[in-house]
Protein backbone atom coordinates (compact mmCIF):
# COMPACT_ATOMS: atom_id res chain seq x y z
CA UNK A 1 0.00 0.00 0.00
CA UNK A 2 1.25 3.47 -0.80
CA UNK A 3 0.79 6.18 1.78
CA UNK A 4 2.13 9.69 1.55
CA UNK A 5 3.91 11.35 4.45
CA UNK A 6 0.86 13.40 5.38
CA UNK A 7 -1.22 10.26 5.82
CA UNK A 8 1.38 8.74 8.12
CA UNK A 9 1.43 11.91 10.24
CA UNK A 10 -2.35 11.87 10.46
CA UNK A 11 -2.32 8.23 11.52
CA UNK A 12 0.10 9.03 14.35
CA UNK A 13 -2.72 10.59 16.35
CA UNK A 14 -5.23 7.78 15.95
CA UNK A 15 -6.19 5.03 18.36
CA UNK A 16 -4.67 2.10 16.52
CA UNK A 17 -3.68 1.72 12.90
CA UNK A 18 -3.14 -1.92 12.08
CA UNK A 19 -1.22 -2.95 9.00
CA UNK A 20 -2.11 -6.59 8.73
CA UNK A 21 0.98 -7.38 6.70
CA UNK A 22 3.05 -6.68 9.83
CA UNK A 23 1.24 -9.13 12.10
CA UNK A 24 1.97 -12.67 13.18
CA UNK A 25 1.66 -15.11 10.31
CA UNK A 26 2.37 -12.59 7.60
CA UNK A 27 6.08 -11.99 7.96
CA UNK A 28 7.36 -15.10 9.74
CA UNK A 29 5.69 -17.67 7.52
CA UNK A 30 6.13 -15.76 4.29
CA UNK A 31 2.46 -16.32 3.60
CA UNK A 32 0.79 -13.90 1.20
CA UNK A 33 0.08 -10.78 3.17
CA UNK A 34 -3.37 -9.95 1.84
CA UNK A 35 -2.16 -6.41 2.34
CA UNK A 36 -4.70 -4.16 4.01
CA UNK A 37 -5.07 -2.03 7.06
CA UNK A 38 -7.82 -1.22 9.48
CA UNK A 39 -8.23 1.38 12.20
CA UNK A 40 -9.08 0.64 15.80
CA UNK A 41 -10.73 3.41 17.78
CA UNK A 42 -11.51 2.85 21.42
CA UNK A 43 -12.84 4.37 24.63
CA UNK A 44 -14.63 7.26 22.98
CA UNK A 45 -16.77 7.89 26.09
CA UNK A 46 -19.26 10.00 24.17
CA UNK A 47 -21.21 12.04 26.73
CA UNK A 48 -18.28 12.35 29.16
CA UNK A 49 -18.50 15.73 30.85
CA UNK A 50 -15.65 16.99 32.96
CA UNK A 51 -14.13 20.27 31.72
CA UNK A 52 -11.09 19.82 33.96
CA UNK A 53 -10.18 16.66 32.07
CA UNK A 54 -11.48 17.48 28.61
CA UNK A 55 -13.23 20.80 28.01
CA UNK A 56 -13.55 19.92 24.35
CA UNK A 57 -15.19 16.53 24.84
CA UNK A 58 -17.86 17.26 22.25
CA UNK A 59 -15.18 17.76 19.63
CA UNK A 60 -13.36 14.48 20.14
CA UNK A 61 -15.52 12.16 18.05
CA UNK A 62 -16.06 14.56 15.11
CA UNK A 63 -12.34 15.31 15.22
CA UNK A 64 -11.27 11.68 14.95
CA UNK A 65 -13.84 10.98 12.24
CA UNK A 66 -12.56 13.93 10.24
CA UNK A 67 -9.00 12.64 10.67
CA UNK A 68 -9.92 9.20 9.32
CA UNK A 69 -11.89 10.70 6.45
CA UNK A 70 -8.90 12.83 5.51
CA UNK A 71 -6.72 9.80 4.84
CA UNK A 72 -6.06 9.48 1.14
CA UNK A 73 -5.91 5.68 1.33
CA UNK A 74 -8.94 4.67 3.32
CA UNK A 75 -8.80 1.71 5.70
CA UNK A 76 -10.68 -1.46 4.80
CA UNK A 77 -12.71 -0.97 7.92
CA UNK A 78 -12.89 0.88 11.23
CA UNK A 79 -13.60 -0.96 14.45
CA UNK A 80 -14.68 0.70 17.69
CA UNK A 81 -13.53 -1.57 20.50
CA UNK A 82 -15.94 -0.47 23.19
CA UNK A 83 -16.85 2.28 25.62
CA UNK A 84 -18.51 4.15 22.81
CA UNK A 85 -20.33 6.18 25.46
CA UNK A 86 -19.87 7.27 29.04
CA UNK A 87 -22.15 5.14 31.18
CA UNK A 88 -25.26 6.42 32.90
CA UNK A 89 -27.97 4.88 35.06
CA UNK A 90 -30.60 6.68 33.01
CA UNK A 91 -31.69 4.37 30.19
CA UNK A 92 -33.07 7.26 28.13
CA UNK A 93 -29.78 9.10 28.31
CA UNK A 94 -27.88 5.89 27.47
CA UNK A 95 -30.06 5.34 24.43
CA UNK A 96 -29.62 8.97 23.34
CA UNK A 97 -25.85 8.83 23.74
CA UNK A 98 -25.54 5.59 21.79
CA UNK A 99 -27.81 6.94 19.04
CA UNK A 100 -25.83 10.17 18.85
CA UNK A 101 -22.59 8.21 18.71
CA UNK A 102 -23.89 6.12 15.85
CA UNK A 103 -25.04 9.18 13.94
CA UNK A 104 -21.57 10.70 14.17
CA UNK A 105 -19.89 7.43 13.20
CA UNK A 106 -22.12 7.21 10.12
CA UNK A 107 -20.16 10.16 8.76
CA UNK A 108 -17.10 7.97 8.24
CA UNK A 109 -16.30 7.63 4.56
CA UNK A 110 -15.46 3.98 4.95
CA UNK A 111 -18.63 1.93 4.76
CA UNK A 112 -17.45 -1.05 6.78
CA UNK A 113 -17.68 0.10 10.40
CA UNK A 114 -17.79 -2.40 13.21
CA UNK A 115 -18.95 -1.69 16.72
CA UNK A 116 -18.27 -3.44 19.99
CA UNK A 117 -19.63 -2.54 23.42
CA UNK A 118 -17.54 -1.68 26.46
CA UNK A 119 -18.70 -1.99 30.04
CA UNK A 120 -19.80 1.67 29.96
CA UNK A 121 -22.22 0.80 27.13
CA UNK A 122 -23.44 -2.59 28.22
CA UNK A 123 -22.62 -3.72 31.76
CA UNK A 124 -25.35 -2.05 33.80
CA UNK A 125 -28.23 -3.45 31.71
CA UNK A 126 -26.36 -6.47 30.32
CA UNK A 127 -26.39 -4.88 26.89
CA UNK A 128 -30.13 -4.44 26.53
CA UNK A 129 -30.11 -0.90 25.11
CA UNK A 130 -26.92 -1.48 23.14
CA UNK A 131 -28.48 -4.52 21.47
CA UNK A 132 -31.47 -2.44 20.37
CA UNK A 133 -29.27 0.07 18.56
CA UNK A 134 -26.35 -2.07 17.42
CA UNK A 135 -25.81 -5.80 17.06
CA UNK A 136 -27.76 -8.09 19.38
CA UNK A 137 -24.90 -10.61 19.41
CA UNK A 138 -21.78 -9.38 21.17
CA UNK A 139 -19.38 -12.13 20.17
CA UNK A 140 -18.88 -13.12 16.58
CA UNK A 141 -16.30 -13.91 13.93
CA UNK A 142 -15.78 -12.81 10.36
CA UNK A 143 -13.20 -13.24 7.66
CA UNK A 144 -11.51 -10.49 5.72
CA UNK A 145 -8.88 -11.03 3.02
CA UNK A 146 -7.61 -14.25 4.54
CA UNK A 147 -7.63 -13.10 8.16
CA UNK A 148 -10.04 -14.61 10.66
CA UNK A 149 -11.35 -11.96 13.08
CA UNK A 150 -12.84 -12.98 16.41
CA UNK A 151 -14.84 -10.49 18.46
CA UNK A 152 -15.14 -11.35 22.15
CA UNK A 153 -17.39 -9.84 24.79
CA UNK A 154 -15.95 -9.43 28.29
CA UNK A 155 -18.14 -6.48 29.25
CA UNK A 156 -21.85 -7.30 29.19
CA UNK A 157 -21.51 -9.40 32.34
CA UNK A 158 -20.72 -6.75 34.97
CA UNK A 159 -18.71 -9.38 36.86
CA UNK A 160 -16.27 -9.29 33.92
CA UNK A 161 -16.46 -12.85 32.66
CA UNK A 162 -16.47 -14.18 29.13
CA UNK A 163 -18.58 -17.02 30.45
CA UNK A 164 -18.70 -20.72 29.67
CA UNK A 165 -21.13 -20.37 26.74
CA UNK A 166 -18.92 -17.87 24.94
CA UNK A 167 -15.81 -19.93 25.64
CA UNK A 168 -17.55 -23.00 24.17
CA UNK A 169 -18.42 -20.92 21.10
CA UNK A 170 -14.79 -19.78 20.82
CA UNK A 171 -13.59 -23.37 21.04
CA UNK A 172 -15.88 -24.44 18.19
CA UNK A 173 -15.04 -21.36 16.09
CA UNK A 174 -11.32 -22.10 16.41
CA UNK A 175 -11.80 -25.80 15.76
CA UNK A 176 -12.87 -25.05 12.19
CA UNK A 177 -9.60 -23.21 11.44
CA UNK A 178 -6.35 -24.43 9.99
CA UNK A 179 -3.67 -24.23 12.70
CA UNK A 180 -1.68 -21.68 10.67
CA UNK A 181 -4.64 -19.42 10.07
CA UNK A 182 -3.95 -15.74 10.82
CA UNK A 183 -6.27 -14.74 13.64
CA UNK A 184 -7.01 -11.30 15.05
CA UNK A 185 -8.97 -11.08 18.29
CA UNK A 186 -10.84 -7.86 19.09
CA UNK A 187 -11.92 -7.40 22.69
CA UNK A 188 -12.54 -4.48 25.03
CA UNK A 189 -10.71 -5.45 28.21
CA UNK A 190 -7.34 -7.18 28.41
CA UNK A 191 -7.64 -10.96 28.41
CA UNK A 192 -4.56 -11.27 30.61
CA UNK A 193 -4.06 -9.98 34.15
CA UNK A 194 -2.49 -6.66 33.30
CA UNK A 195 -3.22 -4.93 36.61
CA UNK A 196 -5.88 -6.52 38.83
CA UNK A 197 -5.34 -3.73 41.41
CA UNK A 198 -6.71 -1.35 38.77
CA UNK A 199 -9.37 -3.78 37.56
CA UNK A 200 -7.47 -4.32 34.32
CA UNK A 201 -8.21 -7.99 33.80
CA UNK A 202 -10.83 -10.48 32.69
CA UNK A 203 -11.60 -13.09 35.33
CA UNK A 204 -11.71 -16.01 32.90
CA UNK A 205 -9.53 -14.41 30.21
CA UNK A 206 -6.83 -17.02 30.75
CA UNK A 207 -9.25 -19.67 29.46
CA UNK A 208 -9.60 -17.80 26.16
CA UNK A 209 -5.82 -17.44 25.88
CA UNK A 210 -5.47 -21.17 26.52
CA UNK A 211 -7.87 -21.90 23.64
CA UNK A 212 -5.94 -19.53 21.36
CA UNK A 213 -2.52 -20.89 22.34
CA UNK A 214 -2.35 -23.78 19.80
CA UNK A 215 -2.63 -21.23 16.97
CA UNK A 216 0.76 -19.65 16.19
CA UNK A 217 -0.55 -16.57 14.35
CA UNK A 218 -2.79 -14.78 16.83
CA UNK A 219 -2.80 -11.08 17.71
CA UNK A 220 -5.16 -9.41 20.17
CA UNK A 221 -6.26 -5.77 20.03
CA UNK A 222 -8.06 -4.27 22.99
CA UNK A 223 -8.86 -0.95 24.72
CA UNK A 224 -10.09 -0.17 28.24
CA UNK A 225 -6.78 1.00 29.71
CA UNK A 226 -6.48 4.39 27.93
CA UNK A 227 -2.85 3.75 27.09
CA UNK A 228 -0.87 2.25 24.31
CA UNK A 229 0.43 -1.01 25.75
CA UNK A 230 2.11 -4.10 24.31
CA UNK A 231 2.38 -7.48 25.95
CA UNK A 232 2.94 -11.13 25.10
CA UNK A 233 1.40 -14.23 26.61
CA UNK A 234 3.59 -16.89 25.06
CA UNK A 235 3.62 -16.17 21.33
CA UNK A 236 0.33 -14.19 21.42
CA UNK A 237 0.72 -10.43 21.18
CA UNK A 238 -1.70 -8.09 22.91
CA UNK A 239 -1.87 -4.43 21.88
CA UNK A 240 -3.94 -1.69 23.54
CA UNK A 241 -4.87 1.63 21.96
CA UNK A 242 -5.39 5.04 23.56
CA UNK A 243 -8.75 6.58 24.39
CA UNK A 244 -10.07 9.44 22.31
CA UNK A 245 -11.61 11.21 25.33
CA UNK A 246 -9.08 11.33 28.18
CA UNK A 247 -5.79 9.80 29.24
CA UNK A 248 -5.11 8.18 32.59
CA UNK A 249 -1.95 8.72 34.58
CA UNK A 250 0.44 5.86 33.73
CA UNK A 251 0.13 2.63 35.68
CA UNK A 252 2.36 2.74 38.75
CA UNK A 253 2.75 6.53 38.70
CA UNK A 254 -0.22 7.10 41.02
CA UNK A 255 -1.91 4.99 43.66
CA UNK A 256 -5.43 5.17 42.23
CA UNK A 257 -6.58 5.47 38.65
CA UNK A 258 -6.47 9.18 37.88
CA UNK A 259 -7.69 11.03 34.83
CA UNK A 260 -5.05 13.46 33.60
CA UNK A 261 -6.08 17.11 33.74
CA UNK A 262 -6.44 18.95 30.47
CA UNK A 263 -3.23 20.65 29.41
CA UNK A 264 -4.03 23.96 27.72
CA UNK A 265 -0.52 24.09 26.29
CA UNK A 266 -0.92 20.65 24.69
CA UNK A 267 -4.61 19.94 24.07
CA UNK A 268 -5.46 16.36 23.03
CA UNK A 269 -2.08 15.11 24.23
CA UNK A 270 -2.27 11.45 25.18
CA UNK A 271 -5.46 10.89 23.21
CA UNK A 272 -6.01 8.50 20.36
Amino acid at each position, binding site marked *: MDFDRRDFLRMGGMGGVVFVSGLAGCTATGAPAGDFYFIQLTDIHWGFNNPNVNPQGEETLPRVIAAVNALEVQPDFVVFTGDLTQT*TDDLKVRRARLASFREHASKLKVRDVRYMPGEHDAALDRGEVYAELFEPRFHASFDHKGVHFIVLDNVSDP*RVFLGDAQLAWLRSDLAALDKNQRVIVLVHRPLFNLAPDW*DWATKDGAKAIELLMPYPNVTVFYGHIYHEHHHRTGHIEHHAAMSTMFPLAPLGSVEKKTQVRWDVAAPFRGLG
Partner: protein
Amino acid sequence: MTRPQRPPVLAPTRRRLLWWAGGVSLEALVLTMRPLRADTARVIEIVARRFEFEPEVIPLRVGEEVILQVTSIDYLHGFSIPSLAIRADIAAGQTFRATIRPPRAGTYVIVCDNFCGDEHDDMSGKIVAS
Protein backbone atom coordinates in the same frame (compact mmCIF):
# COMPACT_ATOMS: atom_id res chain seq x y z
CA MET B 1 -9.41 -81.60 58.22
CA THR B 2 -10.74 -78.81 60.22
CA ARG B 3 -10.00 -75.29 59.23
CA PRO B 4 -8.03 -73.20 61.70
CA GLN B 5 -10.41 -71.03 63.54
CA ARG B 6 -10.36 -67.36 62.58
CA PRO B 7 -9.28 -65.03 65.32
CA PRO B 8 -12.14 -63.38 67.10
CA VAL B 9 -13.28 -60.21 65.35
CA LEU B 10 -13.91 -58.42 68.59
CA ALA B 11 -10.40 -57.11 69.12
CA PRO B 12 -9.81 -55.41 65.73
CA THR B 13 -13.31 -53.98 65.68
CA ARG B 14 -12.76 -52.56 69.11
CA ARG B 15 -9.46 -51.07 67.99
CA ARG B 16 -11.17 -49.53 64.99
CA LEU B 17 -13.84 -48.14 67.24
CA LEU B 18 -11.21 -46.62 69.46
CA TRP B 19 -9.47 -45.01 66.48
CA TRP B 20 -12.79 -43.74 65.20
CA ALA B 21 -13.73 -42.35 68.61
CA GLY B 22 -10.32 -40.70 68.86
CA GLY B 23 -10.80 -39.16 65.46
CA VAL B 24 -14.23 -37.86 66.31
CA SER B 25 -12.93 -36.31 69.54
CA LEU B 26 -10.09 -34.64 67.69
CA GLU B 27 -12.47 -33.28 65.03
CA ALA B 28 -14.81 -32.08 67.79
CA LEU B 29 -11.89 -30.32 69.40
CA VAL B 30 -10.97 -28.62 66.11
CA LEU B 31 -14.58 -27.63 65.47
CA THR B 32 -14.85 -26.21 68.96
CA MET B 33 -11.68 -24.26 68.50
CA ARG B 34 -12.78 -22.60 65.23
CA PRO B 35 -15.37 -20.27 66.71
CA LEU B 36 -13.06 -19.56 69.64
CA ARG B 37 -10.33 -18.43 67.20
CA ALA B 38 -12.82 -16.36 65.23
CA ASP B 39 -14.01 -14.73 68.43
CA THR B 40 -10.53 -13.63 69.31
CA ALA B 41 -9.86 -11.98 65.93
CA ARG B 42 -10.94 -8.37 65.57
CA VAL B 43 -13.84 -7.86 63.18
CA ILE B 44 -13.58 -4.91 60.81
CA GLU B 45 -16.87 -3.95 59.23
CA ILE B 46 -16.71 -2.56 55.72
CA VAL B 47 -19.60 -1.11 53.76
CA ALA B 48 -19.49 -1.43 49.96
CA ARG B 49 -21.63 1.10 48.16
CA ARG B 50 -21.51 2.84 44.82
CA PHE B 51 -18.73 4.08 44.57
CA GLU B 52 -16.71 3.55 47.72
CA PHE B 53 -15.61 1.20 50.43
CA GLU B 54 -16.05 2.59 53.90
CA PRO B 55 -13.65 2.77 55.62
CA GLU B 56 -11.42 3.38 52.64
CA VAL B 57 -8.18 2.88 54.56
CA ILE B 58 -7.67 0.07 57.07
CA PRO B 59 -4.49 0.28 59.16
CA LEU B 60 -3.25 -3.07 60.52
CA ARG B 61 -0.16 -4.47 62.20
CA VAL B 62 1.90 -7.00 60.25
CA GLY B 63 0.77 -10.49 61.20
CA GLU B 64 -2.38 -9.25 62.92
CA GLU B 65 -5.28 -11.56 62.20
CA VAL B 66 -8.55 -9.79 61.54
CA ILE B 67 -11.89 -10.66 60.03
CA LEU B 68 -13.08 -8.39 57.25
CA GLN B 69 -16.86 -8.31 57.25
CA VAL B 70 -18.00 -6.66 54.04
CA THR B 71 -21.62 -5.76 53.38
CA SER B 72 -22.91 -4.46 50.07
CA ILE B 73 -25.86 -2.15 50.43
CA ASP B 74 -26.79 -1.38 46.84
CA TYR B 75 -25.31 -3.53 44.07
CA LEU B 76 -23.48 -6.73 43.15
CA HIS B 77 -20.06 -5.34 44.00
CA GLY B 78 -16.85 -7.24 43.66
CA PHE B 79 -14.57 -7.27 46.70
CA SER B 80 -11.05 -8.11 45.70
CA ILE B 81 -7.66 -7.91 47.38
CA PRO B 82 -5.52 -9.25 44.51
CA SER B 83 -2.27 -9.40 46.49
CA LEU B 84 -3.91 -11.63 49.13
CA ALA B 85 -5.83 -13.71 46.56
CA ILE B 86 -9.15 -12.82 48.19
CA ARG B 87 -12.23 -11.98 46.17
CA ALA B 88 -16.00 -12.37 46.26
CA ASP B 89 -19.13 -11.12 44.60
CA ILE B 90 -21.37 -9.50 47.20
CA ALA B 91 -24.99 -8.91 46.23
CA ALA B 92 -26.94 -6.04 47.76
CA GLY B 93 -27.86 -6.93 51.32
CA GLN B 94 -25.29 -9.74 51.52
CA THR B 95 -22.23 -9.98 53.74
CA PHE B 96 -18.90 -11.62 53.02
CA ARG B 97 -16.36 -12.51 55.71
CA ALA B 98 -12.70 -13.19 55.17
CA THR B 99 -9.95 -13.74 57.69
CA ILE B 100 -6.69 -12.08 56.74
CA ARG B 101 -3.25 -11.67 58.26
CA PRO B 102 -1.00 -9.27 56.33
CA PRO B 103 2.30 -11.12 55.95
CA ARG B 104 4.49 -8.05 55.50
CA ALA B 105 4.47 -4.29 55.76
CA GLY B 106 2.98 -2.42 52.84
CA THR B 107 -0.21 -1.52 51.05
CA TYR B 108 -2.78 -4.09 49.99
CA VAL B 109 -5.17 -2.62 47.46
CA ILE B 110 -8.89 -3.36 47.74
CA VAL B 111 -10.82 -2.94 44.50
CA CYS B 112 -14.37 -3.41 43.29
CA ASP B 113 -13.84 -5.60 40.24
CA ASN B 114 -17.45 -5.73 39.09
CA PHE B 115 -18.40 -2.77 36.92
CA CYS B 116 -20.85 -0.82 39.06
CA GLY B 117 -21.40 2.50 37.28
CA ASP B 118 -20.13 5.89 36.28
CA GLU B 119 -17.58 6.27 39.07
CA HIS B 120 -16.68 2.61 39.35
CA ASP B 121 -13.01 3.48 38.82
CA ASP B 122 -13.03 5.35 42.13
CA MET B 123 -14.23 2.35 44.13
CA SER B 124 -11.10 1.16 45.80
CA GLY B 125 -9.50 1.15 49.22
CA LYS B 126 -6.42 -0.19 50.92
CA ILE B 127 -5.07 -2.04 53.88
CA VAL B 128 -1.92 -0.44 55.21
CA ALA B 129 0.14 -2.88 57.23
CA SER B 130 2.98 -1.58 59.37
